[in-house]
Each structure stands twice: as C-alpha cells, then as structure tokens.
C-alpha cells in the first residue's frame, strides 16, 4: 500500500522526463508564470486580428508591425519626458502618458491604413486586401528600420523589482511573480473587460455585431458601415498600442523585426480561440503564451516558434473554427 504513490510519482516523473526533457517541477512552474504574462500580451494583439477578421474577414497582416511601431512610440514618449534611463521610483505619470500616446498613435494609424489601403478593396476578391495588408506591413517594417535603426533597442527598466512570491512565502525561489508580471496581467484584464463591455453595451458595439453578422442587412437598417469598420480598426489599434508599452516594460527591448513573429503568434492565438471571437482570442493568447513558455522550458528557446507554427497548421487543418469559434453560414 505504502509504496504505491511512490511508484506512481516515479512513473509520473519518468513520463515527464520523456515529454519535457529540459524541465523540473520548479522550472515548469516558473515557466508557467512567464507564459501567463506573455500570453496576456499576445492576447491583446490577437484581439486586434479577431475584431477585424470578424467584421470584414480580412487577415490584417500589418497588425503585428503596428504593434512594433507602438513600442517605438512609447519609447520616444518616455525619452521625451526624460525617462529613457533606469530610474528607481517608477514615474507612473510618464508611463500613463506613454501608454495613452502609443494607444492613440496605433489606433489612428490603423484607421488610416484601413481608409487608404483596405476600404477600396472591401468588395474585391479576398486575396486583394490580404496582399495589400502585406504591403502595409512591409511599409511599417521599413519605417521602423529608418526610425530607430536595425539594432535592438533597450527599454528603460522602470517598474519596481518587487517579487510577490518572495514577499508572501519569504523565500527567494525561481518562481517569481514580480511587479512586471503584475503590471502586464493587471492591465490586460481591465482592457479586455472594457472591450467586452463596449462591444456588448454601446450602440457602436451593437452596430459592430450587426455588421459582422450581415453587412448588407446592417446597411439597410441604417448602420453607417464605414464608420463601424473604422471604429473596429480603432479598437484593435488601441489595444496594440497598450500591448506595445507593456511589451517594452516587460521584455526590456524592442527591434524593428519584432512585429512579424509577434503578429504571427497573435494570429495563431486568434485562430486557436476561434477567429472572430473576442473571448476566444483572449483565451487563445493565454494558452499560446503558456505553450510557448513550456516549449522553451522543455526543449529550449529555439523550438518555441516551431511549436507555435505547428499548432497553427494543426488547428487550421483539423479545427479551422478554433476552440470557441462558431460555424457561421458564410464560413462553411
């Protein structure tokens, strides 16, 4: 009797060794915390994809690079306010300023991109706006390159170095939930809740849902479709801008090529959750963050993106509607 749990745990340990050769229990737990914060970031970007796809069925390829430009804007604002060096008491006011400016910048740029590059193609065959979006993405990347140069740029370490786990348990361990994690998670959740409220309760939100369901019918019912679509791009951009500042403070660096992988990851998250579904995107983001952190812990950093993209291919092949996606008529 007494040896039984022992055997079980040994078997479990062996199995874990096979599934996750690089990790121990503590490392996996530490990885999960990192994955949670990364996932919250991915989720914010993923919502931008899912909103746009839900309403005009466009994979807004430039969204990741919009996020990259957002990190540059946030850094520029911090520098302009004199906080581009590490300072010990966190300059909360400057952070709020950087957040607001980055959000507004990304929001407006996204609206402009829609106005210039996508609107005229709304009734064109589906691949035309997709190719146009790839073009916009390229433009953003090169603007980023010209703006801040090719080398990775360091973000100032502005958040306090306070570890909640240590404060509670009193011992320093690898499992850390520090102020940075709290900042990311604590900002992502209210933003998503607010978004949900806007979609559910405001007039504009209702119009968005109407347009997503049937654009023609919405038009006939007197909904200003152009405005609704602009508003959708604005929302997506705002969240990307918020994610940009959070990424900078959390990961401590940015580079002009950041957007491509970030965008692909976020898109994968949106597809995983069921594209067009906002809750799904949030869920997909968190799951993807956890998956990424686990891949890194178990197999090493170089396999992270292989895991992410394999998941993308597998979902699209076997369950294109994602975890929470619904089978809508036009999505047959």
């Amino acid at each position, binding site marked *: 009797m007494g040896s039984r749990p022992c055997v079980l745990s040994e078997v479990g340990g062996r199995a874990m060794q096979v599934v996750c050769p690089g990790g121990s229990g503590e490392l996996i737990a530490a990885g999960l915390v990192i994955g949670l914060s990364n996932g919250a970031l991915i989720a914010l970007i993923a919502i931008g994809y899912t909103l746009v796809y839900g309403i005009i069925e466009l994979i807004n390829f430039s969204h990741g690079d919009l996020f990259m430009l957002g990190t540059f804007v946030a850094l520029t604002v911090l520098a302009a306010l004199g906080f581009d060096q590490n300072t010990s008491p966190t300059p909360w006011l400057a952070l709020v300023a950087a957040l607001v400016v980055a959000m507004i910048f990304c929001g407006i740029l996204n609206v402009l991109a829609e106005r210039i590059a996508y609107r005229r193609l709304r009734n*064109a065959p589906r*691949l035309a706006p*997709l190719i146009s979006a790839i*073009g916009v993405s390229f433009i953003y*990347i090169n603007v980023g390159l010209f703006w801040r140069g090719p080398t990775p740029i360091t973000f100032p370490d502005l958040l306090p170095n306070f570890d909640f786990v240590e404060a509670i348990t009193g011992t320093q361990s690898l499992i850390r939930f520090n102020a940075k994690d709290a900042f990311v998670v604590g900002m992502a959740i209210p933003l998503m809740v607010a978004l949900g409220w806007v979609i559910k309760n405001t007039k504009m939100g209702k119009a968005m849902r109407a347009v997503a369901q049937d654009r023609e019918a919405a038009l006939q019912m007197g909904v200003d479709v152009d405005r609704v679509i602009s508003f959708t791009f604005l929302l997506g951009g705002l969240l990307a801008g918020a994610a940009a500042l959070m990424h900078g403070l959390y990961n401590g660096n940015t580079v002009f090529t950041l957007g491509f992988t970030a965008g*692909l990851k976020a898109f994968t998250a949106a597809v995983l959750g069921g594209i067009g579904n906002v809750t799904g995107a949030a869920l997909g983001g968190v799951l993807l963050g956890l998956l990424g952190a686990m891949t890194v812990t178990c197999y090493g950093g170089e*396999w992270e993106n*292989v895991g992410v993209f394999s998941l993308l*291919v597998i979902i*699209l092949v076997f369950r294109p509607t994602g975890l929470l996606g619904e089978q809508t008529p036009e999505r047959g």
Partner: protein
Amino acid sequence: MKMNRVPVLGALTSMSDAQQKRVTFLGIAIALAIAYPFIEQIFGLRLQTKLIPVLLFIVLALGLNVVVGFAGLLDLGYAAFFAIGAYTVAFLTSSDSPFAFVDTAPVNFWIAMVAAAVVAALFGVLLGAPTLRLRGDYLAIVTLGFGEIVPLVIRNTPELTKGVQGMKPIGFPELPGLRWGIATEPWYFLVLGILLLSVFLTGRLRASRIGRAWMAIREDEVAAASMGINPVTTKLFAFSLGASFSGFAGSVWAGYLQVISPEQFDFSVSIFVLLMIVLGGMGNIPGVIAGGLLLGGFDRVLSDFVSDMLRGVGNTFAIDALRDADISRARTLIFGTALVILMLVRPEGILPSARVKAELHAAEEDETEAAQQRSELFESQR
C-alpha cells in the same frame, strides 16, 4: 450576342499579326539572353553574377504562377520547397551531408537535381493533401506557417543540417570539358536553359486539359466540380507541380552558391516571388517574366546602380545625407508601397493575360472590364 462584334476574319488577321510580332520579339529576347555573356565580355559589364539569381528567381516565379496564377491557390510558404530542394541536393552531394556514403561517393549532380524536384513535390503532396480543401486565406496562412517551420527545423537540427552554419561546399554539375565550380558562364547558360524550358512547360500546361481545369476551378470550384473535374486532385497536382519547380530551382541555387543555410529561405523570399507574379500579372507567363525582370533587376542591379549614383552626387556636391545612400535599405518600403498601390490601382498587374481576358470578355459581356480582370486573377468564393 456576339454577332455585332468585330468580324471573325478581322480578328484572325489581327491575331496572326500579334502572333507574328510575338514570335519576333521572343526570338530577339532569347537571342539577346544567349548572347549576353559575350556582350558582357566585350564591354566588361560584370553583371552576370547578378543576372543568374534574377533568372533563377524567375524560374521560381513561373512555378508559383502555376499555383497562384493558374489554380488560384495563394501559397505564402513557397520558399519552403525551395529550401527542401536545396537541402536535398546538399544531402546528396555535400561533404557536410549526414549520410556517410556521400563523403566518398557523392551523387551525380544531375541526378541530385531530379531528386530535389521529386522530394519537393512529395512534400507538396504531404502539405497539400490535408490543407487544400481550406478556404483561400486559411490556405495562405497554413502555407505561411509551413514556410516558417521548415527553415526553423533546419536551423534547430544542426546534427543533420549544420544549422545556421549552413552546408558547404555543395557538389556541382559536370559536363565533359567544362569546369563548373566557380566559372560563371556555364551557370548562366544552365539557368537560362532551365528558364526557357520552364516557360515552354508552363505554357504547354496552361493550354492543356489540366490547365483549363485549373482555370475552371479558379473561377468557380462548384461549377467545375459539377462538370466532372475532381477539385482535390486537380488542385493537388498544381500545388505539387509548383513545389517541384521550387525544389528544382533550389537545387540549382545550392550548386551555384555552394553554400545553403536556413535564412536563405525565409518569408521574404516567398513574398519576393509572389510580388513578381502580382506585379507582372498573375496567370500570364510574359507578365511573370516581366515582373521578375523588373523586381530582380531592381533588387540586384538597379538599386546598386542608383545607390552608387546618389553617393557620387553626395560626394561631388558635399551632401552628407547622400554619401552613404543605399537604396536596398528602403527595399521593403518600396516593395510594400508597390503592393498596396498595385492592389488599389491595377490589381491585374502590368501585363495581364490578354488571352484569358478575351475569353472572359466573350463569356461575361455584361460585367465591367475591371471586374472581369479581377475575377480571373483571384478566386472569388465569397
């Protein structure tokens, strides 16, 4: 309905005129291309090493044109097959190969080239079989994911592929009396020959039964299926044929460069080739060649030339901003802008397919011209 249009006889004579012109120009173009190395030797141009990649990328574009232009399947991971072809050759001929026998007895390069095309086609079937039933933009993203995975796996398995260090040196083809390793001319003629063969092959395919089936599916899959065309096998054939073109080109690329590494096959390569097609005119072979020459010429020849000129101006007139001018750094900006403007203004490309346009014109008279061009260029599955 058609009676009041241009008399048939007139159409015929004008057609044959156009055809005559076409044959003449084609002849001149081929002659020029073949004569180029000699022109170069006389004038000391030193552009051959730049032209070889341009021509090879046109071969890639012709292959992708089968997938995107003929069959209407947007493939954003085309570079993956290019990589698979290149690594097949490296596995069979390089001293870095994981197969021990290659060190002592490398496979003949000509055979390795064929193997590269076959292996790439196999991978095309493997990827295509489960995914080709997906809708257009989902297929695009699946291929994009595949295109990302292949170089990453190559990078992460250095035991097999040497990872980022790349595999080198690669074997090269031999013909009696010709030293291929580093000589430029044989490679130029080899690539030119492959290009001409590709033009011929894709041209014949397009006119064939299967070519018409591709276009039928591109236009309306449901209607095509009800006419007795099997959409799955037809699409799969286009997809794997495109992949084999890419693999074949990859084998030549590996032999020419003598080194291959994963970052040579990243997303930008897939997009570059796609841009050649979109710019030139999807589905139209002369258009694809024109697009390839324009983009490749810009990328390899013109951008250096313009940068040099700007630097010259900067040095002469002491304008500091121009002294280090380098157009290639604005490459993605120029490509991106081109893509957006093209989609907005002329989504059919600079040289859209005249023949298909005429066919369409007869078939759907009531539609506007622009709508016709678009519908021939893209699947319209809404």
